[in-house]
């Protein structure tokens, strides 16, 4: 058991993400679909986290709190997956290396347990990160 583990983060589409973006990104269902990190059972064990625990994911480019869930399309030890959306995009590598395309797949991240920190709603997360005042 460790306080934190390092994994390789990728993001991408899931069918739940597709349904959630069409049913409304202001809704909690968007957070349920995309405010998660899919981890291999062996990595969850290494971290000493139960399924459905909130964790903080940190990269060189930022950090975000998401809920850790067991990989639905595993096994993939050493690789973690956050569905595409504002949660993933808070930590992925934005460098395009002169291609225009950020490096959405393959960002080294650190994961630590953060039981007491909340997972924000999608729009709320982006507004907070950008310092937008909302009335």
């Amino acid at each position, binding site marked *: 058991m460790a306080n934190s583990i390092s994994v390789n983060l990728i993001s991408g*589409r899931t069918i739940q993400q597709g349904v959630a973006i069409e049913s409304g990104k202001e809704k909690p269902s968007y957070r349920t679909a995309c405010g998660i990190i899919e981890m291999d059972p062996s990595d969850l064990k290494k971290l000493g986290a139960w399924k459905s625990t909130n964790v903080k994911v940190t990269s060189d480019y930022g950090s975000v709190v998401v809920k850790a869930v067991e990989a639905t399309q595993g096994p993939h030890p050493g690789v973690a997956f956050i569905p595409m959306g504002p949660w993933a995009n808070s930590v992925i590598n*934005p460098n395009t290396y002169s291609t*225009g*395309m*950020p490096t959405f797949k393959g960002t080294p991240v650190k994961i630590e347990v953060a039981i007491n920190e909340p997972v924000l709603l999608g729009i709320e997360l982006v507004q907070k990160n950008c310092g937008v005042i*909302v*009335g």
Partner: protein
Amino acid sequence: MTKTITDVICPFCGTLCDDVEVVVSDDGKKLLEVANACVIGTEKFLHSQEPDRVTRPRLRQEDGSWKTVSYEEAADYTAKMLAKAKKPLMYGWSSTNCEAQSIGNEIAEIAKSCCDNTAAVCHGTTLIAVQDIGLPSCTLGEIKNRADRVIFWGCNPAHAHPRHMSRYSIFPRGFFTGKGQMSRKMVVVDPRCTDTAKMADVHLQIQQGHDYELLDALRVALKGEWLPDSVAGIPAEKIREVADIMKSGRFGIIFFGMGVTQSLSKNHNIDAAIALTKDLNEHTKFSIMPMRGHYNVTGSGEVFAWQFGFPYSVDLTRGFARYNPGDSSSVDLLTRGEVDAMFTIGSDPGAHFPISAVKGIAKVDSVCIDPHMTPTSGVSKLHVPVAFNGVECGGNCYRMDNVPIDCRKVVEPPEGMLTDQEFLTMVLDRLKKLKGVA
């Protein structure tokens, strides 16, 4: 009484299914049921009926609250913003029709703006590779009728294009593929054991980010040359087995997705995939096709290319079209803080750009044209809700294989709501007056 409308086009993903059926109320104002579409498509049609939909433009006030404004005021704001800006960025276009895209291009030319579509964060690197070495491709109909070798490389249609396999690539019984799935061999290359990979005859669970090596190793195997014991985590015997599967078919297709376009090496991965396709044509017939995401991102590339000469990331600030991804691309422009006004339509960069780029949107004057509330509308100064294209208005769209298909209107938008095309025309008229263009 209700009416059933058949042969409706689903405006969600690049598969652009054209066999959807919807049931509407007698007066054509309510959409009641959807048949044949997948869960995502169904949700897209039904969400248009939500009672809590925003139906009028909203302008953000000093205290952060929204004030409802008329479409006229919204068009004034947008035209003034574009007229004043030195380097506006007009981004999105992939969830609207080609007619609206074309009006948008006229606006962009007058406003001397940078224009980009969602290829910027999806198949932009594919477009670069295609410009490098070309693309031997075909239509989805040919695949349905002929393909007996189907490779999904770094894509997961079970989740991203849910009916792709049942309509075109794996299950249908075509002219030369009479036994459906039994007539085809399916290979999936993915670092995860995805739901698509679970269906495959062979799954190559590649080490993430090592696609270039594996593509090259397959080219080596095709030539029968020496290979190291393992490449990208895949044993040499397995690579030779897949090379044999590929070259023993009568007609093969490589579909590829974000797994190759968004990993390091980017456009070079696609160069290698296209080169592999070329090599395979020495043994049999092989094609390659990008799995385009938004239902009309392909159309946006077509309209840009037809009107400006380049498919995305076009910079018109000097009065003529320049194209230089890395310089003229949205994520780079925003991250470098070069943009002084942001116009978004038919996409959600707030959710799908890296946060460092989204911050660039929040800092400047901005307009978001979108039927939904999104992270982009959440950081924009003006939100203009419009009719759902493909549901509440028709228009031309391009499927992922570049086949144009006309979307259909199936239900009326809420009273008084405008379509993308109508709102853009209002902006264009105003901008012409402001800039003194006839």
